[in-house]
């Protein structure tokens, strides 16, 4: 019995040590690598919720993934640090941009629906239209253009490659190679056959990105677009083409901006509130349950450290609602100790020895602690999966993790420490 207690105690110390190394930001081990994730309401930033129009979509999951990756590309170009892009439900994409300043600009760039079409040369009499350049709207391309039935939907991908020119003196030139799917291959073959030595325009949002001249009929669905001035331009063209593959329009249906100062204030206030709350609880517990209260407070500190470490590991993004969940789980952890101590008092009142009272107190209180906490965990799980939105989910996650940890600390830690003291010469110190 005594030996088992020390083994458990050693285990607790090891877990605690690991947790401390995770929590302290500058610890030599993982503290630096594993960063705490803070929600937008705490650091400031913008959350955008887009809804995709999937009515035309054939493969909805693929289109949603595509849309998400197109969003990611566009956001990366904005240079926002650590954006998160997640799909929610069947047709929503939630984008979180921490610390972004020029939001409206970002929204314009992110949300644009690119319609990519291939156009052939035409005349104004035959219904052709004049188009300007994508990069320089002031420049108007010569000639008139007419849409074909080939669009970005039939495009499988665009990549930048290098082709060495025949002239060995010239450097290898960056070109953009494109690939069509089966339907696109056939359409492209017809298109190139009909337009030999004529230009085909690649048009995004009614502006010409590029208008290469068809050199030969292409039947394998693979083509290269030459004529890019440099690598950068070729890259730009390739990414425009890739974005243009996306036929799914998305609508901005929700937006939330939190100013950086507001976020920092909230973070600071919740921290202060949490610490004040903890100190108050600790004083109450010690005043009411004496030395046992001290042990409970120690267990509570162990609890807080382990929970923090888990939040970093999982990782849990801390939001205001999440912090509220954490604080509540502290309340539930203390509840377990109160239940146990009250029970110990009763057992002692029955005239049991200290050791027995501690053991029985824990045993008897355990059913209540287990039942009440399990029902809360069930609630958390249901919340986590039904309420798909941010704050409720964060709350359920932090509360759930907190309750599980509290079952360990409030029972194992308190019990081990109390029994160790009760078995030692210092047992006269224990008061409940």
């Amino acid at each position, binding site marked *: 019995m005594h030996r088992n207690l020390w083994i458990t105690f050693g285990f607790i110390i090891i877990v605690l040590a690991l947790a401390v190394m995770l929590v302290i930001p500058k610890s030599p081990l993982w503290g630096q690598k594993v960063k705490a994730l803070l929600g937008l*309401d705490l650091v400031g930033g913008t959350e955008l919720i887009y*809804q995709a129009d999937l009515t035309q979509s054939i493969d909805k999951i693929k289109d949603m993934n595509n849309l998400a990756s197109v969003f990611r590309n566009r956001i990366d170009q904005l240079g926002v640090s650590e954006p998160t892009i997640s799909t929610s439900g069947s047709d929503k994409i939630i984008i979180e941009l921490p610390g972004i300043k020029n*939001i*409206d600009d970002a*929204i*314009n760039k992110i949300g644009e629906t690119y319609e990519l079409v291939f156009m052939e040369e035409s005349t104004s009499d035959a219904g052709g239209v004049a188009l300007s350049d994508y990069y320089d709207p002031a420049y108007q391309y010569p000639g008139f253009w007419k849409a074909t039935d080939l669009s970005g939907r039939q495009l499988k991908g665009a990549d930048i490659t290098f082709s060495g020119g025949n002239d060995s003196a010239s450097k290898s030139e960056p070109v953009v190679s494109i690939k069509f799917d089966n339907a696109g291959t056939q359409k492209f073959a017809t298109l190139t056959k009909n337009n030999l030595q004529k230009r085909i325009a690649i048009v995004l949002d009614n502006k010409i990105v590029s208008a290469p001249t068809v050199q030969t009929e292409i039947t394998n669905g693979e083509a290269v677009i030459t004529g890019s001035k440099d690598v950068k331009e070729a890259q730009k063209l390739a990414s425009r083409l890739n974005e243009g593959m996306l036929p799914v329009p998305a609508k*901005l*249906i*929700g*937006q*939330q*901006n*939190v*100013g950086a*100062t*507001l976020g920092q204030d*909230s973070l600071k*206030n*919740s921290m*202060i*509130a*949490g610490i*004040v*709350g903890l100190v*108050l*609880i600790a004083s*109450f*517990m010690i005043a*009411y349950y004496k030395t046992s209260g001290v042990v409970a407070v120690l267990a509570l500190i162990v609890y807080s450290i382990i929970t923090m470490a888990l939040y970093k590991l999982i990782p849990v993004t801390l939001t*205001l*609602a999440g912090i*509220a969940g954490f*604080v*509540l789980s502290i*309340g539930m952890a*203390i*509840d377990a100790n*109160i*239940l146990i101590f*009250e029970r110990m008092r009763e057992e002692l009142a029955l005239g049991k020895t200290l050791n027995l009272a501690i053991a029985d107190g824990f045993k*008897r209180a355990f*059913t*209540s602690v287990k*039942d*009440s906490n399990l*029902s*809360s965990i*069930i*609630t*958390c799980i*249901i*919340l986590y999966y*039904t*309420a*798909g*939105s941010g*704050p*409720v989910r964060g*709350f359920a996650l932090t*509360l759930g993790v907190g309750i599980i940890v509290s079952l360990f600390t409030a029972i194992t830690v308190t019990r081990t420490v109390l029994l160790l003291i009760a078995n030692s010469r210092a047992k006269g110190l224990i008061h409940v």
Partner: protein
Amino acid sequence: MVLSIVAIAVFGLRLGIDYKGGTVIEFKSTNPDKVAIVNSILKDQYSSGYQVKEGGNNTIVLRLPVLTAEEHVQFVQKVKVEISDYNEVSYDTVGPTISNDLTNKSILAVILASIGIITYIAYAFRKVPRPLSSWKFGASAVIAIIHDLLITTGAVAVIGHFVPWMEVDALFVTALLTIMGFSVHDTIVVYDRLRENFIKNPHQDIELTTEESVNQTLARSINTSMTVIIVLLSLFLLGGQSVKHFVLTLIIGIFFGTYSSIFVAAAIVVRWHKKPS
């Protein structure tokens, strides 16, 4: 409970944009005429359906119908012409699709959680000795929960009538669910004692057994709620403005939850049991 229903009916709940859709803008400016300026700009655009309220620290809170990104830009441009130090603290817009989604999900969450709790209690107390039924335990716990939630919602309706920040949003549902969790905690502790005492003295009058059980768990119930309310009070007084309504809802709910687990849940089991069926 009746009072709460009346309060909800009379005052209604102050629905946040989470549930009805809309836009909330909060900005800071030292311009003394900012309320009048914003009001006149909004009047041109909307005849009604908007709200301008002054907050502390030179802030103004605007509530508008859903704005698109362009409308937001236009609005800010217009305001900036007259209020040069316009500083947007927060901007929040929720389209009707999201708000419908949220409402449905919240209702679903509450129903599912209730079913989960009844089932769990019925399972956990399946060994309750004969004349008592574990399903009655579960159902009584849920009646106690409904009692807590109704009273809390009623109180929120009354407070919301007088204070603008007492809004019903996604966090409100979270608060209700937490209250539910706590109420079940309390109820289970009392039930647990009831079961234990009942097994110990099966022939004692059930009413007496219940009374004993409630008394034995009283110190725990009160101490637990006290510690939680201590933390919540410090969150309420020191924590961020954006969770104030959430924390206050929790305080009310946990206060009544403790009361109900002491006086309501066990009492229902007793009544139910005594009624010849």
